[in-house]
């Protein structure tokens, strides 16, 4: 089975920054990921590590389920410390996330790299992936599974932030609180959105291990 979505011609046509042979390197112009995106990605990595590990410590203070997170995996030492880290990193996560969304939408990247994503294309790519045939020939092109995963994690992060705002200020954000089913329900929404994010991170890291040059691209740009 051939996939036109990963064919070089399609890539060139769709790529906003074509890599023309003979053109001298023009700084970020040739980067797979522009500098602003790489900075945003690594700031996000830091914010997510701090938010998730301090969040686990906060969860441990009053677990929703019959388990606690291992203390060695948590950040903050005790509840007040974890809350300080959580409420400090939330500004980094929020500001960086907002900058990312504005830049990715404003630069047209959101539409060029992540859209469209159709159920049909997702199923085709899923079948290819399961047969080990999904191509990673061009790191500038995202297959449908990647598009779905990245769009999902953007949406999931928005749910995390919204439910987090309800837990932080449930009286001051009444509309958000009612949309999420009240304070108690928002705790579960926040927990499951965190679990989904952690699941994404695991898959993301496995994929990076399988295709190591994506790490280079996200670090050095190419």
């Amino acid at each position, binding site marked *: 089975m051939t996939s036109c979505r990963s064919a070089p011609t399609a890539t060139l046509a769709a790529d906003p920054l074509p890599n023309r042979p003979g053109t001298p390197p023009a700084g970020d112009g040739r980067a797979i990921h522009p500098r602003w995106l790489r900075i945003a990605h690594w700031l996000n990595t830091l914010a997510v590590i701090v938010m998730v590990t301090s969040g686990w410590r*906060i969860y441990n203070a*009053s677990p929703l389920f019959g388990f606690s997170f291992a203390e*060695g995996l*948590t*950040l903050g030492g*005790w509840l*007040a410390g974890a809350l300080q880290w959580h409420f*400090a990193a939330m500004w980094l996560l929020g500001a960086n996330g907002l900058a990312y969304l504005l830049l990715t939408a404003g630069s047209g990247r959101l539409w060029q790299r992540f859209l469209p994503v159709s159920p049909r294309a997702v199923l085709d790519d899923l079948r290819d992936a399961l047969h080990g045939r999904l191509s990673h020939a061009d790191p500038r092109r995202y297959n449908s599974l990647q598009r779905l995963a990245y769009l999902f994690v953007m949406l999931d992060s928005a749910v995390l932030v919204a439910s987090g705002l309800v837990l932080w200020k*449930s009286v001051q954000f009444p509309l958000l609180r009612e949309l999420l089913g009240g304070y108690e329900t928002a705790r579960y929404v926040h927990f499951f959105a965190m679990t989904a994010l952690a699941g994404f991170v695991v898959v993301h890291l496995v994929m990076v291990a399988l295709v190591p040059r994506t790490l280079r691209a996200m670090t050095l740009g190419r």
Partner: protein
Amino acid sequence: MSKRIIPVDGDALTKEALSRLDQPARRLFLRRALTLGGLSLLSGCAITDEPSAEKALAKISRFNDRVQAWLFDPNRLAPTYPESMIARPFPFNAYYDEAQVPDVDAGRFRLEVSGLVADRHAWSLPELHALPQADQITRHICVEGWSAIGRWGGVPFSLFLRRVGADLTAKYVGFKCADDYYTSIDMPTALHPQTLLALTFDGQTLPRRYGFPMKLRMPTKLGYKNPKHIQAIFVTNTYPGGYWEDQGYNWFGGS
């Protein structure tokens, strides 16, 4: 040099011992924080420098106080609930065991009022019960994450502050309690229509375990901001801190 025998002050000794007990938990906060694998990779960064990280976090916490004060809407009410949703039994929560709850003598009790107020007379319980009373069924949210709905009745705190001629432009209202707890709140929250000087729980005289003879009940703040067994109230422009707040919990503590 002659040796002097210093008389042992029981209260001071207990306080000293308690303050020493607090220290290990406080120090653990960053020491344990930095065992985290992901962050230790960043060694060399300022983040591994304990005092500076602690200072930075405290600074951001004060910034968060200001953001919360800005977000606070004095007219926005916390949700109220039907009687059927009241938690029974309502959880006991304090920094000590239930057996150590103070036993306040109702007959001899007088609520002290001081600071930027016109009328500094101490209030007896019958005097407080004679003031107009209000009732609310609201959610108590603990900083740990759990919450419970309860019904509190008592004197609207804004009415009490006006009655004692408090300077309503002052920054803080502080509380000292019979269980050695202390805390302080911002004036806008003190004047919020749902902030009650609570004398009853679920229609009964406030039980010992929930803060007899009175607690300050604020559905717009987290549980630790709601002091129990209140003995003294003072109005001030000097930051008074609080028992948990001095150990790192956010001062505004809004919900």
